[in-house]
């Protein structure tokens, strides 16, 4: 598992509005890549193009190439549903399915794709919950609703749900922004563990978080409001935070921005 993603010349649009311009980067397998940058710079938008979630918004489209394992995700004939099975996603706000129990939430990806084998499901649910550091907290109440958990537990439930379908890549869109510091720490520990098996890409507003969890950091910025966001620079996290190549990056990470 875990695959390299190579992006080249990517432009992202909402209707006529160009939100992200000319992004090229390589995301290494079995590593954590963090996207940082000010609000509105298009990092979340860009993240959503990596599993073709961008296009569920009416009028949204993409130009350029996203190559995963020698296959261009935007080539004709590629099924976005198949792409999303390989590239999973965790969202900003925890969003467990309210009508489903904890067990069914984790099993939902498999169940909805036709897996009926009860033994396999039980196994996957346990493995995924353990993988998301949630097993010990919920193992006695798997039949209770997922919405009854705390915010941090719900987010780990969503991560368990994402890893249950065994993707190659996991995208995380500010997964800790709605959580308290203790839950955040739990998620960060989890991300550290996930990179053994998966390629992890995380968008974060929290600079310390990017510094703590990521191997590579990409800094996005936009020239002015209404202009498209661009990738300013990307490199090993240590280098970006200690010795950035661009003035804008240095200003942003030291808080002297704008």
């Amino acid at each position: 598992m875990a695959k390299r993603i190579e992006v080249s010349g990517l432009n992202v649009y909402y209707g006529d509005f160009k939100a992200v311009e000319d992004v090229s980067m390589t995301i290494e397998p079995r590593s954590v890549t963090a996207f940082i940058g000010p609000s509105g710079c298009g990092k979340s938008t860009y993240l959503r193009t990596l599993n073709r979630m961008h296009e569920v918004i009416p009028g949204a489209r993409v130009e350029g190439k996203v190559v995963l394992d020698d296959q261009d995700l935007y080539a004709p004939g590629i099924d976005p549903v198949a792409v999303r099975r390989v590239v999973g996603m965790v969202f900003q706000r925890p969003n467990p399915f309210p009508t489903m129990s904890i067990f069914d939430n984790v099993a939902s990806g498999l169940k909805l794709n036709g897996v009926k084998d009860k033994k396999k499901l039980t196994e996957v649910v346990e493995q995924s919950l353990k993988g998301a550091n949630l097993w010990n907290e919920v193992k006695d109440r798997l039949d209770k609703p997922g919405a009854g958990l705390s915010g941090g537990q719900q987010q780990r439930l969503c991560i368990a749900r994402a890893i249950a379908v065994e993707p190659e890549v996991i995208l995380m869109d500010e997964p800790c922004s709605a959580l308290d510091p203790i839950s955040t720490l739990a998620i960060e520990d989890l991300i550290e563990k996930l990179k053994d098996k998966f390629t992890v890409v995380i968008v974060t507003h929290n600079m310390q978080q990017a510094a703590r969890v990521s191997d590579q950091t990409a800094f996005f910025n936009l020239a002015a409001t209404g202009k498209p966001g661009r990738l300013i620079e990307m490199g090993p996290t240590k280098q970006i935070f200690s010795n950035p190549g661009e003035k804008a990056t240095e200003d942003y990470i030291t808080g002297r921005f704008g």
Partner: protein
Amino acid sequence: MSTLAANKPAYDGQTLDLTGKSGLRAFKDTLATVLIVLAFVVALIPLLWILWTVVSKGYHLLLSADWWNQSQRGVTVRREGGGAYHAIMGTLIMSLITAVIAVPIAVLGAVYLVEYGKGTKAARVVSFMIDILTGVPSIVAALFIYAVWITMFGFNRVGFAVSLSLVLLMLPVVLRSTEEMLKLVPDELREASYALGVPKWKTILKVVVPTAFGGIITGVMLGLARVMGETAPLLILVGYSKNINLNPFDGFMGALPTMINQDRTELALQPAADRVWAAALTLILLVLSLNLLARLIARFSTIKSK
């Protein structure tokens, strides 16, 4: 010195007074409270009045078993006896057929409007047509079906024709309420499902509709409650029969609204008046029990919390 500073009350040397409301504000508060409670009571009066009248005048016939398993066959206006079985069954059969036809169309229509057609011209046209349909009076719907079913195709006046016209009345109610419920399902749930590699149709079927299920059922029940009380289609499209007829494709059929209408002109006669009130109460109870049933279904379909 700025005007702002000049207008600021001088608290220096004084203790702050934080007790009580000022006289005017307390008065406004009381006035608003009284008005709201009054409006509530005024709205409640007709409801309680109707319920009290119908229950007090109609309850005693409902206590006999005959009411629930006999028809009005051979019972004349002046005579007591007989029951409402024929009318209850007629109302249930016709409403059930209506629901079976209207609910799938309404739910699928709402799914189209919310999930697929959003912002398209086709969706706007459908939405506009539904608005028009909402405003169609029941007698117009009945006459339309009369023109199609009887004048054009040459069929007889039967229960099924009533159901067809009731479909026209139930469809917009259920479609609109289902649409509102589907809109309430957060997009995050749809995206969570897509992100698991679940196709759109399956997301709608297994995530969106189950999340909105309770609300959809409530809408269906509202629609049913509306069509159960409709009288014009019954008068125009099927004759009232005092006999038990369970076949919606053949012959006249009794129904609770037409049973009420039947003896309406003879209210001076006690047996007839009793039957009218009892039939009215039965209709209310029928709608009420369907509502309760809907709530139970909605409750047990979602998993129990805590």
